[in-house]
């Protein structure tokens, strides 16, 4: 039984991105379809910091490198907020299961 839900991860991620995007003067709405790199102007280190902050928030390791390697092999090197949240949720839930077993 997972205690961390996708909704929780979504809320945490969106809250963080909305807060940060105010500092970037990003005027658009951030949705699940928003691209981190091409829409929000992320650089790689931004992804690192975002990932680390979510790890801190949830207290579990999340292998973002795996996601980023996958992104690097795509025709378009980018990731949507939805994909980011899905990956984070699955990783956190897998970690919980591993710890419980």
């Amino acid at each position, binding site marked *: 039984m997972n205690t961390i839900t996708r909704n929780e991860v979504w809320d945490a991620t969106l809250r963080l991105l909305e807060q*940060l995007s105010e500092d970037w003067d990003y005027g658009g709405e951030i949705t699940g379809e928003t691209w981190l790199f091409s829409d929000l102007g992320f650089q*790689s280190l931004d992804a*690192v910091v975002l990932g*680390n*902050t979510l790890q801190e928030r949830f207290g579990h390791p999340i292998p973002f490198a795996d996601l*980023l390697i996958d992104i690097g092999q795509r025709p378009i*090197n980018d990731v949507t907020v939805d994909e980011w949240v899905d990956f984070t949720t699955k990783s956190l839930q897998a970690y919980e299961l591993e710890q419980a077993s």
Partner: protein
Amino acid sequence: MTKKTVLVGLDGATFTLLDPFMEQGVMPFLKSFAERGVRAELRSVVPPLTPPAWTTVLTGRSPGHHGIFDFFQADGPGSTAIRLATSGDIQVDHIAEMANRSGLRASVINFPVHFPPLSIDGLVIAGWMPWRQLRLGCHPPDLYDRLKQLPDFNPRELAMDMALEARATEGCDEAEYIEWVGLHIRREERWLEVLNYLFDNDPSELTAVLLDGPDKVQHLCWRFLDPALWPADPTPEEIRIREASIGYYRRLDDILAALVEKAGPDATVVMVSDHGFGASTEVFHVNSWLEQAGYLVWSEDVTAQLSEGDTLGMGHLSRHSRWLDWDRTTAYVSTPTSNGIHIVRAEQHGGRGVAEADYDRFRAELVEALLSYVDERDGKPVVKAVATREEAFDGSAGALAPDLTLTLRDGGLVSILPANEIVIPRPQPVGTHRPLGVLLAAGPGIRQDTAIDELSLLDVTPILLYSLGVSLPDDLEGRVPAEMVTPEYLASHPVEVESGHSTTRDNQGKAGQQQLYDDEAEAILLARLRELGYVE
């Protein structure tokens, strides 16, 4: 009585430049500051690299204890995967925590390996942060919003903006050199604005700030700054770049004057650099040397991997792990920033590599081979010294350190890329680190106009704690140099040592948690390191 204490970090500052600048009137304030205080050369750590060195400054512990050896960190002992080092990797107490235990606040501004920020009683603004997320490097969380109210607040200039930083690369044209210098003048001005605000509105007993412009400017512009490299008949372009570069130090002098004035007449101000600077004239392709000597085998598709395009810069950090044939490699260098060779140990790699019983012999032979390698151009040795892990990183955190750390004859950093030639001369000298940095200090009880013998970076934390009136934990590795202080002051303010308190964290760092490793981080970092001259 507790005194206000200010640490000003001047990344990479060296008397090679500061002395002539003080004499020539470029830095009149610094000259007057030196005359009313103490100066000494300050020996850095091994390797003399920004993350381990500043971590030593702020912990009083050597890398073998604090656990930071590079910009990057191995995932675990013997692991070939590496990731960006974070504050969670630091395995000892921070000076801010030592001050807090004595009821004193601390502000720690712009130092590397400070993300995620420590939850101290005081303020943290982590250095080496991407500007878009500088907010996340701030503690307490409302600090960023307060800073945003400053009239000239500009996170792009305060923190890292790769779009700006990537412009400056080796061999860039005149305009880019001058723009690079200008960026760092503006960056120091922004930090001065932040500090003025903090001194006025949120003061701490200990304020530590890092100004990293000297390092950045010197990496790119060293040949225009070092008197020994200045040509007899410079071109107009060289003269313009030199004048612009010197302009950085003129402005830095103004900023230091403003900072010291703001700190007030009763404050102790300690200025230090993490390492010195000098010229690098060649590139040693260490992995190619290891290949030639029979220790390393490239994977078959290394050439294809090297030519891969990568718009996000993904996949670089642990790139060596894909470049190498791990069935046949016994020694390799994974990062271009630390001159550290890792030996593949069979017990950590599923039986591949060097058997435990053979490790000492293998390592000794490798050391011998490195020291006896000579450049075919001049017949002289390229590797000046080799330190074993026990010699360079003796301590509880040493297991993550390289097995061997090289000092090259030109003081430079290795290349990890494959190359047809082992040693390749650089077309022009570039700036690189040297072991001797600077210390200048002035304040109550500190001798005036006094040059003292070389000190250690390990002494900085004891000096700061002494100035604050805080007892020194007895496992600090440095000392309070009595020769810095007047005999009268020392008699009335004896150094107090707190026995039985270990600064080593019992959880071996907070890191375990940080799995940010691999491929994302270094995209930017490598770009930044490249422009700083760490990566060819």
